[in-house]
């Protein structure tokens, strides 16, 4: 039960709109955590604060022995230069709702970009490892295709391989299946299920309650920028304490 991620008092506002109202969250290694909640409750913003795609206005995120974006100096958090922040960010793999593949790179090019440019691997090494990952997500045959030639499900599998190529400590998923046609959702959930089985630590924002029930070790429900439930899937999903969580779940489970 080693701690992998610890979010402490995360607050975030856009203008005068307070989206996150001081969130705390612990994630241990090997754990699969699903974040559920109504649209606009701040799930994406929270995930993006965890890897500093958005800078929180208050609070901080500790990842594997270091605070994201800061260093502790004389009792205060001193902001890090961008290069060191990027190095920290590369420890958290991110999978986006809209894939965000590099349009001018092949499938293989997408996967080797990070290892080559950031980790300084040789092209041969990066390609050999990338092919292994593409194999794992069933995309090896498409290695020399361009993103525009792939289906949504295929793009998302490549995006997962690209994130895995950095050998991140934790994988973050922001609604990885929401932009997909229903018949393609299964192939992505299957890849994620395999990752979970292999012991990958994952934080998954999702609307797939079935996936949460089956795969998650723990489920968090966010409402209006607050964590209202945090516990085992069967307890949170079947028997939530919070009345607003009960209304939310009854709507999505209906």
């Amino acid at each position, binding site marked *: 039960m080693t701690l992998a991620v610890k979010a402490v008092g995360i607050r975030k506002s856009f203008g005068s709109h307070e989206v996150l109202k001081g969130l705390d969250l612990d994630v241990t290694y090997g754990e699969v955590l699903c974040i559920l909640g109504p649209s606009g409750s701040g799930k994406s913003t929270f995930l993006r604060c965890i890897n500093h795609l958005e800078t929180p206005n208050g609070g901080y995120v500790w990842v594997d022995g270091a605070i994201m974006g800061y260093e502790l100096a004389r009792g205060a958090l001193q902001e890090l230069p961008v290069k060191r922040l990027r190095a920290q960010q590369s420890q958290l793999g991110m999978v986006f709702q809209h894939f*965000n593949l590099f349009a001018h790179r092949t499938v293989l090019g997408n996967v080797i970009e990070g290892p080559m440019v950031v980790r300084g691997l040789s092209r041969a090494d990066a390609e*050999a490892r990338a092919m292994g990952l593409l194999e794992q997500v069933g995309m090896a045959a498409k290695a020399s295709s*361009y993103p525009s030639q792939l289906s949504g499900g295929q793009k998302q599998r490549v995006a997962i391989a690209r994130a895995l190529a950095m050998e991140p400590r934790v994988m973050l998923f922001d609604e990885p299946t929401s932009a997909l046609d229903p018949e393609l959702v299964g192939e992505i959930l299957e890849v994620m299920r395999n990752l979970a089985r292999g012991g990958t630590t994952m934080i998954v924002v999702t609307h797939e309650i079935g996936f949460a029930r089956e795969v998650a070790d723990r489920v968090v429900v966010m409402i209006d920028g607050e964590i209202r439930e945090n516990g085992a899937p069967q307890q949170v999903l079947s028997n939530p304490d919070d009345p607003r969580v009960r209304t939310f779940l009854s709507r999505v489970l209906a």
Partner: protein
Amino acid sequence: MQSTSNPISTLSLADLPGPDVAIRRLKHPGRWISGGLVILLIAVIGRAFAVGQIQWTVVGEFLTAGVIITGFGWTLLISACALVLGVLLGFAFGIMRLSENPILRFAAWLYVWVFRGTPVLLQLLIWFNIALVFPKLYIPGLIDARMVDVVTPFVAAVLGLGVNEGSYLTEVVRGGIGSVDKGQKEAAHTLGMTPGQTMRRIILPQTLRLILPVLGNSAIGMLKFSSLAATIAMGEMLNAAQRIYFINGAVIELLFVCAVWYLAGTTVLSIGQYYLERHFGRDAATTTTERRWFKGWARRPAVTGEA
């Protein structure tokens, strides 16, 4: 009387012709007439030039005259240098235009405002006379010279045309960068790529593909605008032609000589632009082989797909 208003219903199956029936196409007399008129017009204009006060032998004579060829060489050199300068400035200021730093953003805006907002001929004249503002060019340990010696007509021409072109390209580059979707930038950040790496490896290559067709236009425009340098005593082709016809009086002949060379130059560039657009103008859905041509360095993967 048989109805002619609805011939389909009156044609019985028994009357249908065989499959090899002859087909007579509709005639287009209007096209022939209008085409004939245009040809006539061209002929009349052509004749006017042929019999007018133009000594075609003089045109032929000066077409390959050493002074004209040298002038055309200068024209090409000015255009090429100014285009390179314009592209460099366009990228530099285009990136600055999107900087986080408000001062840099403002500087880039100011650049575009000034140089896109004033006539390029005026700018050429100002560059040519820049010594009146800055009599000396002094950079400690690097340069210490009189401005008139530094800003020769050639330098003034390249600066004037290049800096002006750069102000247009700044906007083009800004648009190109803005059209690369923001998600790719975020993806690069989550992989740990620095802002510089993201710009160089993810954003700019896609921007370049978008703006290459525009660069074709710039090159053609630059070739023609370089003739403005004639006004600042730069010995490019038009200036050379002028110096000749001041002496021999063959004004229209020498201007025609220039026209022939400019047309030749822009034709070559247009052909080049056609091929550029064929390869880069399309969206990302180009096939693998075509994109390989663009990325000469994109080698085949060392490990190919097993499946």
